[in-house]
């Protein structure tokens, strides 16, 4: 409150405080009229802010808090919720499927985020120098980002099919490489799905990186070149450090995206969701199945709380690490 009132009143005080109240020259000011202009501005500001805050509290914060409570119950949508203490969490810890899903989720995060950031940077770095059909190329990279994840997942799903219909296997066959199982393999399925997720998010990251690159003043580069610095040194000493805020933003965003991956996995493995043998199942899919296939809302809520904590810790950790080193 204090911060908002300070901010909103600052410009107001200077210009409006000296003015006399125009509405009530004689009668003593009452209620609304008794407020000074700057106080009125504060009231207005809070009035406008209250709506989204209430809305958010109702549809975001309340359900979030409720999920914490649900995770301590055995609610299944049908029977009234019964308090079971930490039973759901105990079950989670002893569920081998949960640990597999936990590992999968971190595999998506730890391989997906750095890979996508590096690829996006390299493309943005070189695309920034390309003048020929620059707009078209940039649009082509951005296109997947505009496409529905479900539709893309289905197209990739067919790309990955075994012969005779799989496009990728058909391509491999022309070079005499034996057909790969891709989605039908416990080792290849997760990377295969991750590739599609990286590809889908690449366009957005490239655009942001390019905006970051453009924001670095050209004079720095000129000065560096005059001083005789090589391209690599320029990249290391100027481009990367000055791009840090952009990188932090993208790393955090991409990490959250990979931790919450669902669409691609679900759509590419609908017959055996998260399969084969659970090798591609992320936490969100497990939550979905517990909640809307088995109707174990309490158990699903416990998983949600775990996901929430992971997201919170990972986001805070990244912000902290990447900020410390600047």
């Amino acid at each position, binding site marked *: 409150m204090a911060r908002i009132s300070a901010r909103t009143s600052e410009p107001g005080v200077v210009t409006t405080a000296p003015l006399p109240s125009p509405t009530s020259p004689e009668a003593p000011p009452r209620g609304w009229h008794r407020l000074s202009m700057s106080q009125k501005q504060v009231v207005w500001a809070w009035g406008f802010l209250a709506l989204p805050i209430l809305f958010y509290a109702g549809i975001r914060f309340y359900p979030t808090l409720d999920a914490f409570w649900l995770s301590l119950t055995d609610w299944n949508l*049908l029977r009234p919720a019964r308090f079971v203490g930490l039973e759901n969490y105990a079950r989670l810890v002893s569920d081998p499927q949960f640990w597999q899903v936990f590992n999968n989720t971190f595999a998506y995060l730890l391989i997906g985020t750095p890979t996508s950031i590096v690829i996006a940077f390299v493309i943005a770095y070189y695309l920034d120098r390309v003048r020929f059909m620059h707009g078209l190329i940039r649009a082509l990279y951005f296109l997947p980002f505009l496409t529905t994840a479900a539709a893309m997942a289905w197209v990739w799903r067919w790309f990955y099919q075994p*012969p*005779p219909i799989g496009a990728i296997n058909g391509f491999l066959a022309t070079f005499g490489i034996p*057909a790969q199982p891709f989605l039908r393999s416990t080792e290849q399925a997760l990377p295969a799905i991750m590739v599609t997720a990286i590809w889908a998010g690449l366009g957005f990251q490239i655009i942001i990186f390019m905006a970051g690159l453009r924001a670095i003043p050209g004079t720095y580069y000129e000065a560096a070149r005059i001083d005789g610095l090589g391209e690599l040194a320029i990249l290391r000493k100027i481009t990367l450090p000055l791009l840090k805020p952009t990188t932090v933003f993208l790393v955090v965003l991409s990490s959250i995206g990979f931790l919450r991956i669902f669409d691609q996995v679900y759509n590419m493995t609908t017959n055996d969701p998260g399969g084969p043998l659970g090798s591609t199942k992320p936490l969100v899919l497990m939550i979905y199945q517990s909640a809307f296939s088995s109707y174990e809302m309490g158990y699903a809520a416990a998983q949600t709380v775990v996901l929430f904590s992971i997201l919170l810790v990972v986001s805070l950790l990244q912000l902290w690490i990447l900020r410390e080193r600047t």
Partner: protein
Amino acid sequence: MRTTLLKAGLLAGVGLFAANAAQAVEIEYWQYVFDARVKAMDQLIENFEAANPGVTVKHVTFPYADYQTRVVAAHAAGRGPDVVQLFYGWTDNFVDGGILQPLSQEAFPHAQIEEDFFPIVTAMKREGEYWGLPTAVRSLALFYNKDLFEEAGLDPESPPTTLDEWVAAAEATTKRDGAGNMISAGTTLDMAGQDHHWWREVLVRQFGGEPYTDDYRTVTYDSEAGRAALEWYTDLQLEKGVGAAGFMDEGQAAFRAGLAAMTIDGTFRLGAFRSIESFEWGVAELPAGPDGTRSNYSSYFANGIGASAEGEELEAAEKFLAYITSEEAMEVWLETVGELPARREVALTEANLADPIYGPFLRGLEYAHTTLFVDEAAQRQLIIDATNRILLQGQSPEAALEQAARDEQALIDARN
């Protein structure tokens, strides 16, 4: 039409007089969206409203993916339907959750139900009461591609009748390219489709075992017979190479595309396969086991009465349920949706039995079993996983099945 209707009304113990006496009552009927089903139900509602002035039926539909959640959520909010369609496998959940009320024995006498309907209707019985009745039932059969049979030198008019003949036909129709890649499968192998039912209720029995105890509360497929059945199934890919899990993504897609000579699927697939124009296909009974054992898996959507219906609405709901499970309604359903009538008398007519498409499915109903699932998706997953452990990780059928049986038992125990 009037007489059939009257018969249905009498059978239900509700005279048509009651209909005239009733004041304007509106009841809600809920089912999931599937074009043919919605169309058939609209027609049934129209017939019912014409015969029962004063009763209107509001037809509410939801996409299948959220259907169950919607019913459960509406019940929690106290706004449930009066008559609701449910998969027989959800009965436990719906009864435990208090979504349904038992069908009154006056309106729906048990002896009558058990005499008129196929025996699988008993899957709707809990605590000595019936909680719903089906309009139509589904069973499995063997679909085969006549063109591929002919191409392989097989007689397209005499499909395989035993498992051995079936394997021979699959071997004859499998095609591979120079690199050894399958380009057309002898059979589809898709545990995520109907194969898990085929294995559970048919193959296990044909190899001399029982999948569960009679009450479906104890898993018994972890036996010599169960192992033999699973090994036989996985060997179709590993040893005989007549099919491959994941070929063409889904079994039904492979068959539809004309790239699989045979597939095992249900009545509900008829609609999709009827639009096939590029080849001729036929339907046959599921192949018999080595000792001649035949079995089938049957399932159905039943219609139950919502727990909140009472008074006039309950009366109207009972009348409506009696109508949509009457002989007349079943004929409409067979014609529009293509699903088999749940009453023996309507189903087992000479014309139906002689029908080249319905015949094999109907014969299958006579000896079909209906698995009482506690969580069908989760139980299916365990069989998919057991198969994948053998196919992808080289686990022995023995170990794979042992784990599946242990996990499934734990799942069943947790729900009791």
